């Protein structure tokens, strides 16, 4: 470590400086590098792609526009003739009224920038398509270089060719130990084992490094490391975000990503599954699970939020995530207006949104229940799957038996009817309320004989009814009936009453059993008026997990109408019927997808006339409520609507229609055999529901919206301001839609993965490069547009991208190619002069050095200390976190894991968006609210405090000391062992001296303060090794803590 590395001959530095100075030739400026950045930044805001903001009819982002004769009669650019080019006159003018850019824009040009534009026009004003929009070439020639020894692969030829033009030479290869540490962190996010380093240092086989790389790429740690990177892009978090920020269970998606990287799923297939795994020709549960990627956006449950506003936000987040993570462009700019710099129109934005808006989803999640917002994918265990199949089969058998039995009951019916002397009675109601009086305490009498009482709230009154008095409702008051109607989706029931409305209701609640409307995802059952029509539903989570039927005809206004809803307990829309005045009415099925329970949310009583934050039944009256826990026959419902119907039918029992109706009554309510079979069927359904209720669910995409939504361009991105409809499409300026591809997410994947797509492969390759060099070939890895930074090595980027595509999008091969290149293997040390001339290492005349990511710093320390728990996947864990952080923000409390959750890899750390883990964010990890593909790397004192004082790090220091003390007794050997574990190299003699002195002094001082020694060794939940002398352990713990604080411990060099 002590040797210096004068890598550069001083004269070369002078040449480099001279070359830089000469980069201002008098001839044509480079359009990509010099001209476009000026035009884009200063001119495009008013003369660019955004048609809405374009001034004077001038468009400078396309060649034709720049030549056009303007409204004023002038031409902005006359190629070769600056003097007659209005652009030049304007930028040279001193008249504030005439000068461009206009002074109030505060975008003034410098003299040098004016010169560039003028020289460009003088040289012919040639345009060139922005490099990133050009199709990926089929073939990228590798430059010939005169050095046959240094280049190991084509990467090196590109780099060396560039170095030659700057009269630079590459750095020598990094020392062996350093190389292995770098490869280990770069490929797995973990340091190497000391023994592996020693073995590698001694392994002089020519392929020693390649073998080490293959070993690293073959480890599951590689997959975890790659996943950690994708989690940022996918805005993965364990909570929904926004203010209440409730828990959600999406870790199964994270594990799917780990499995995909572990088996080196080709990147094209990986993306296809993330975007459209449910739409593949033969989708699997695993491929469908991948689409949770598109649902990881934030959602809110804040009371009073407008559902459509947030649904639109969800879809927009998908567009922008694909923009940043896959296309590397800032599509978000085109949400409100045409992009000001890049060729994306607002219609392009909403064209993409149309492709991503096919799910039957809500904009809000449920506050009162823990329902998984639809669409949701079931993730049953193998046992559950078996049990489920068995239970489903049993239901099928019983339904069949019931059908057979029903057909065979003719004799029994005849016998029953023949034995009847009076009309059959309507019995078995679980609640009958006539609303004839309200008791002083606000309760209501139940005439059903169950002695249950109804309750009233906000003082409904009584007034003239269909029979005697009726309940008068004002939209805010209600009556509710605890215990009278506790139905599950497996229970048949009938609910009937008279209703009189006095106006057309766009929406109003007649009755329901549910805690709330959107605040509960409408969990429960309900009868509403929607656009004046009866609408009955059973709902687990609206809209994707529910049944709903809506009457075709509006409900009559101004008189008492008898309305009844009958449900057969089948979880099918066909089993849900509506009756008006005792007669079944025609309905349309709006939803038919109920698969989970309808109880929950804290609602326990059938309620009339009003619901939390919903529209009540204003100006209406309800009378003669009857609740029956079975599916009544039509004639029985007619009896409720007009008493005497049964008697009338009984009197005419030999006429066919009446006899048929009576037969139905018998089968529904009086046949013991069918009653028994229906009971068995209900039990079988309940048994199945019990299995279903325990099955884990996760948000995914599914193209299951019943009526395809029409996408609109939204003025200013405002959900309330729909402009013209927009067809599903991808930005054609990048690449035309593939011929014959479906206009859906699968087609979008096909478009993205076209072998000539200008962006997908370039962006992917650039991010892998960024992982290995700390900086992409395009440094702005999130923005390949005209405002992003241009690549210094555009040909290398293209070659890598082409190679990547041609390799079958093989990620491991790409990593291997990069890290085995001579370029990557260079030493990162260099002379200060080179550092000053090329501070960002753009030319790659040295190896990379950069601070490790938050995860790698923590995981590396855990690994070195021996505490790291190497379990892969599973629910997220809650390691040490300073107390009170959740509590002071929201009242939820952070429960630290009691055991191994403290020591898992950081990609498993629980991510709460509104209070992200500070051990991560202090080291520049984001809060995962939106897609992010590049983290900052800052240095601040809070990081020092974290490494010095976080119990996690104090504990790793003590654990490292413990294991070291057991490994060897010699103090120097202990120091070497410890240093090797933390920074993967042997210490220098000077370092050893400092450390020996440290241990000696601290041991002496701890000997005088045994309580302090014990206290230090007791930090953390990992048990202290009591076989070790506490004074000794404390001294070595202090040293280990110092080592973990080293710059070298947190930096990749």
């Amino acid at each position: 470590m002590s040797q210096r590395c004068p890598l550069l001959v001083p004269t070369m530095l002078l040449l480099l400086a001279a070359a830089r100075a000469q980069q201002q030739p008098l001839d044509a400026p480079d359009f990509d590098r010099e001209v476009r950045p000026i035009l884009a930044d200063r001119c495009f805001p008013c003369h660019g792609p955004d048609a809405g903001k374009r001034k004077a009819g001038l468009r400078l982002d396309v060649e034709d526009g720049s030549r056009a004769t303007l409204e004023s009669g002038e031409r902005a650019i006359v190629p070769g003739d600056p003097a007659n080019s209005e652009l030049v006159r304007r930028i040279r003018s001193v008249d504030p009224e005439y000068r461009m850019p206009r002074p109030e824009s505060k975008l003034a040009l410098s003299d040098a920038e004016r010169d560039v534009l003028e020289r460009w026009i003088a040289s012919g004003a040639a345009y060139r398509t922005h490099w990133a929009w050009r199709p990926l070439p089929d073939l990228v020639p590798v430059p010939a270089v005169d050095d046959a020894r240094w280049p190991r692969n084509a990467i090196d030829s590109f780099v060396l060719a560039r170095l030659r033009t700057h009269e630079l030479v590459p750095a020598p290869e990094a020392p062996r130990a350093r190389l292995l540490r770098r490869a280990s962190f770069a490929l797995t996010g973990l340091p190497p084992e000391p023994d592996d380093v020693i073995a590698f240092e001694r392994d002089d086989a020519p392929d020693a490094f390649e073998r080490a790389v293959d070993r690293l790429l073959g480890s599951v740690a590689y997959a975890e490391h790659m996943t950690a990177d994708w989690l940022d892009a996918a805005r993965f978090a364990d909570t929904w975000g926004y203010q209440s920020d409730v828990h959600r269970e999406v870790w199964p998606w994270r594990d799917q990503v780990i499995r995909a990287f572990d088996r080196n799923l080709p990147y094209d297939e990986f993306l296809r599954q993330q975007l459209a795994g449910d739409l593949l020709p033969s989708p699997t549960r695993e491929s469908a699970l991948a689409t949770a990627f598109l649902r990881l956006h934030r959602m809110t449950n804040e009371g009073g939020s407008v559902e459509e506003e947030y649904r639109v936000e969800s879809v927009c987040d998908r567009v922008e995530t694909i923009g940043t993570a896959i296309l590397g462009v800032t599509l978000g700019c085109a949400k409100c207006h045409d992009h000001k710099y890049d060729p994306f129109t607002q219609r392009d934005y909403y064209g993409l949104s149309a492709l991503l808006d096919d799910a039957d989803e809500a904009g809000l999640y449920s506050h009162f229940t823990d329902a998984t917002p639809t669409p949701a994918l079931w993730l049953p265990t193998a046992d559950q799957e078996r049990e489920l199949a068995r239970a489903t089969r049993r239901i099928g058998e019983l339904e069949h038996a019931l059908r057979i039995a029903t057909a065979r009951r003719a004799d029994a019916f005849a016998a029953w009817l023949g034995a009847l002397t009076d009309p059959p009675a309507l019995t078995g109601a679980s609640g009958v309320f006539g609303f004839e009086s309200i008791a002083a305490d606000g309760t209501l009498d139940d005439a059903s004989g169950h002695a249950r009482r109804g309750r009233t709230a906000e003082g409904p009154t009584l007034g003239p009814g269909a029979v005697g008095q009726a309940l008068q409702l004002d939209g805010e008051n209600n009556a509710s009936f605890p215990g009278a109607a506790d139905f599950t989706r497996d229970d048949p029931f009938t609910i009937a009453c008279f209703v009189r409305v006095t106006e057309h209701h766009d929406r109003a609640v007649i009755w329901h059993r549910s805690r709330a409307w959107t605040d509960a995802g409408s969990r429960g059952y309900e009868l509403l008026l929607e656009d004046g029509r009866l609408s009955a539903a059973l709902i687990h989570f609206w809209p994707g997990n529910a049944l709903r039927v809506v009457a075709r005809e509006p409900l009559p206004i101004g008189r008492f109408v008898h309305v009844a809803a009958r449900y057969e307990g089948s979880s099918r829309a066909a089993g849900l019927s509506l009756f008006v005045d005792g007669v079944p009415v025609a309905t349309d099925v709006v939803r038919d997808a109920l698969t989970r329970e309808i109880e929950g949310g804290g609602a326990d009583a059938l309620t009339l006339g009003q619901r939390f934050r919903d529209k009540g039944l204003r100006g209406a009256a309800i009378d003669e409520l009857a609740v029956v826990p079975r599916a009544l026959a039509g004639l029985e419902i007619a009896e409720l609507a007009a008493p005497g119907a049964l008697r009338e039918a009984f009197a005419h029992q030999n006429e066919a229609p009446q006899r048929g109706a009576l037969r139905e009554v018998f089968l529904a309510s009086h046949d013991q055999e069918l009653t028994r079979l229906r009971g068995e069927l209900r039990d079988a359904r309940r048994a199945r529901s019990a299995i279903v209720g325990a099955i884990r669910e996760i948000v995914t995409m599914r193209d299951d919206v019943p009526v395809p939504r029409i996408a609109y361009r939204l003025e200013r991105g405002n959900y309330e301001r729909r402009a013209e409809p927009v067809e599903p499409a991808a930005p054609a300026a990048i690449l035309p839609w593939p011929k014959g591809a479906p206009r859906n997410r699968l087609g979008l994947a096909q478009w993205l993965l076209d072998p000539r797509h200008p962006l997908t492969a370039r962006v992917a390759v650039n991010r892998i490069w960024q992982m290995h060099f700390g900086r992409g070939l395009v440094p702005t890895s999130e923005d390949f547009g005209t405002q992003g930074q241009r690549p210094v090595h555009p040909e290398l980027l293209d070659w890598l991208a082409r190679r990547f595509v041609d390799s079958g999008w093989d990620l491991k091969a790409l990593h291997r190619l990069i890290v085995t290149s001579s370029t990557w293997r260079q030493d990162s040390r260099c002379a200060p002069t080179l550092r000053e001339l090329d501070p960002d290492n753009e030319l790659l005349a040295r190896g990379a050095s950069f601070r490790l990511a938050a995860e790698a710093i923590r995981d590396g320390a855990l690994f070195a200390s021996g505490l790291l728990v190497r379990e892969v996947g599973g629910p997220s864990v809650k390691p040490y976190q300073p107390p009170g952080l959740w509590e002071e923000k929201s009242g939820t409390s952070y429960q630290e894991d009691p055991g191994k959750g403290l020591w898992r890899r950081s990609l498993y750390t629980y991510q709460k968006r509104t209070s992200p883990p500070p051990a991560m964010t202090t080291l520049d990890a984001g809060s995962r609210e939106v897609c992010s593909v590049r983290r900052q790397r800052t240095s601040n004192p809070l990081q020092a405090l974290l490494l010095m004082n976080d119990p996690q790090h104090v504990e790793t220091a003590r654990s490292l000391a413990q294991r070291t003390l057991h490994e060897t007794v010699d103090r120097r050997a202990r120091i070497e062992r410890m240093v090797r574990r933390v920074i993967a190299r042997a210490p220098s003699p000077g370092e050893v001296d400092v450390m020996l002195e440290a241990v000696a002094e601290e041991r002496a001082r701890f000997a005088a303060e045994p309580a302090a020694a014990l206290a230090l060794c007791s930090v953390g939940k990992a048990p202290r090794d009591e076989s070790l002398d506490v004074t000794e352990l404390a001294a070595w713990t202090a040293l280990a803590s110092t080592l973990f604080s080293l710059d070298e411990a947190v930096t990749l060099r």
Partner: protein
Amino acid sequence: MNAITRRALLARFGLGGIALRALLDEERPLPDGLHHAPRARRVVWMFQSGGPSQLDLFDPKPELVRRNGEDLPASVRMGQRLTAMSGNQARLPLAGSIFRFAQHGDCGAWVSELLPNLTRIVDRLCFVKSLHTEAINHDPAITFFQTGSQIAGRPSIGSWLDWGLGSDNHDLPAYVVLVTKGKGGQPIYARLWGPGFLPSKHEGVQFRAGQDAVLWLKNPDGIDPPRRRRMLDRLRTLHEFARDAEGDPAIDARIAQYELAFRMQSSVPEVTDLRDEPASTFALYGDDARTPGTYAANCLLARRLLERGVRFVQLFHRDWDHHGNLPGGIRSECAQTDRGSAALVVDLARRGLLEDTLVVWGGEFGRTNYSQGKLTPQDYGRDHHPRCFTYWLAGGGMRAGHTHGATDELGYNVASDPVHVHDLHATVLHLLGIDHERLTYRFQGRRYRLTDVHGRVVRELLA
């Protein structure tokens, strides 16, 4: 290039102070210093989270009281959207305040009986009764106030100032956040003081009541300050070896980072320890201020931070979200906050700090003039109302004893001199010597600023 690189590194790795002139060209916000002479050098923003009712504190409406119980006229609402909480109510009954209002001070400012301490300092305050915002739910509304955008991800106002101006104290962060401890109500979130796309060191640093005011500030048990010093000395020696071997200036930054952390281990406890305050301080702020984490204690702590050169101190006090039982709720919040808010203004004035310290008080929106839920003679609730609400400001360059803007007779819409959130932001920046249109940061190819493409300095508010 040489010099720029060195300065850039210093700036990037320091905690501020020299930030202003030392950032790289691309990053440098104020290349020539401030845009104009500042009227204020620091800001304390007392954020009342949840949305206090302007109608019960500052904006008396006799007409509303007179028409108590009548329906909100459609001509007043003009079809504007309501939240989905009261938007479905069958009736929207007008609800006059049950609290008594009186005019106070020489300026004759109206303040209700709920804020007795504030009534005594109204001549120092500038009331804005015509503030309005765009968001109607808490999260987007508070995000809008903090970042100038309803969409999460932009830098908070304190981060903008930290980035643009840095700190006058090298041993303390430039942007400090203090949250009243133990409050219920609507949640708040770390991103409200987040740096957005600015370098993450510009994130607000929360000082928390209790032993560790800053996360991990305290040494572990068994490591006392002398031992920590010895450990850091050895670390420094090892770092110097590494620097000599690597030639990487980032190692110098790492050394500086540890030294600053060590200084913070004494500077932060020093500033947060209120025990050295004289009895007169507690006579002013009240005995509540002796309990760490109370609003009053945070007001006092804010003064100590401002005194030491912290640029931007932001208090958050939750639980003003009075949808129901407003009279009970607002009494309780006022009792907790009135004395501290007023004491801070007085205290700053006594110390001569008020003239260059800007004090801002307010929440994310106002509350409706109609009752959410049932209206009774003693009880009512109010829903979120973005169309008009009141802020008060004081100190650094504000026009004292002035009231700006007015609402209509029912207190539903702004009647004159509207002030948008962007305008308030522009005005705050202006007072600090910054042209809000020129404090821009390039991110994802676009120049961003706190005020987006809007904002107007409200000169009528300036002294």
